């Protein structure tokens, strides 16, 4: 086991917006709803959990930043559609943990201004659906050609790391310069032996920055996971900055 600190927060992404460099505080919480079911004839309260869990992102503090990929652009429009949330809490490193959700709804944005201080901004996100404890398969970094994570490091989920009920895949692309290429296609892969990889789940091809979530269509996810990326119709010297994380569902093989 290891302890981690603020320096280990590898990235904080809301959709394709990178809030890492402006944020300084955040609370990621889950509460389980309980119901009082105390009947007559008892002297102690009885509580039961009907099974409803509620996730939310709150207590956020950040500096106001008007960059096109930062906090103000992410929140000021208060887009009503849910977006992808990804946060690396133990380093921007393949194989490390990332908290991910596909259901981040923007429910609050506040800017504050004080004499003698930098402007501040904060957001509140409600999470519809699940929040996953995912594994980083491609750390947030820039690529400049077709490639795959095997040339960097693949992710070994361990002997019992495979799953038999599919996986959730999260992608956030914060920067994309196609330089004439048609699109960027990122594909999640898996392998039993770390030698031969099979395509597991292709993400939607990107023509601009974006974030997406996919549930794998193949239920068997094997021990070794990786991803590959291809600039379709490559022209010029395209670049992209993206992170990909995966949560392999239980039960494990």
């Amino acid at each position: 086991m290891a302890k981690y600190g603020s320096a280990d927060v590898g990235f904080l992404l809301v959709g394709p917006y990178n809030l890492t460099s402006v944020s300084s505080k955040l609370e990621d919480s889950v509460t389980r709803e309980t119901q009082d079911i105390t009947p007559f004839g008892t002297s102690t309260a009885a509580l039961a959990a009907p099974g409803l869990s509620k996730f939310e992102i709150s207590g956020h503090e950040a500096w106001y930043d008007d960059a096109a990929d930062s906090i103000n652009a992410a929140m000021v429009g208060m887009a009503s559609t849910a977006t992808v949330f990804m946060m690396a809490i133990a380093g921007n490193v393949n194989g490390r943990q990332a908290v991910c959700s596909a259901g981040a709804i923007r429910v609050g944005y506040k800017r504050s201004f004080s004499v003698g201080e930098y402007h501040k901004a904060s957001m509140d996100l409600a999470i519809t659906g699940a929040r996953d404890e995912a594994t980083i398969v491609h750390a947030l970094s820039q690529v400049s050609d077709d490639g795959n994570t095997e040339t960097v490091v693949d992710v070994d989920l361990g002997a019992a790391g495979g799953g038999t009920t599919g996986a959730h895949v999260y992608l956030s692309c914060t920067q994309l310069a196609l330089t004439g290429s048609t699109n960027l296609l990122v594909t999640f892969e898996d392998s039993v032996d770390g030698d031969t990889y099979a395509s597991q789940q292709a993400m939607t091809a990107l023509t601009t920055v974006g974030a997406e979530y996919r549930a794998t269509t193949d239920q068997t996810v094997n021990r070794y996971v990786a991803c590959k990326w291809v600039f379709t119709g490559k022209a010029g010297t395209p670049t992209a900055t993206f992170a990909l994380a995966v949560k392999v569902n239980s039960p494990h093989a």
Partner: protein
Amino acid sequence: MAKSYRLLRELRYPDGPSNLAKRRAKDPDVVWKIAPEGSIQTDIPPGSIPWLLEQGKIEEVKGTPSPTKVKEDSDG
């Protein structure tokens, strides 16, 4: 003679003799072959074939694929 397999899924594997120990040591010199779905391949690393078959990612092609036939000119 190496058996032929039809890919039911796009595969990526080392282009050339596979050395799994080096793979796991993250050999930086590896060159990957990306074989598209639907293609027929004969060079899949042997150690990977059993699980690829079992998980339905490839299927064995029975018999030798027919050579491309050139239609002969029937005139004359």
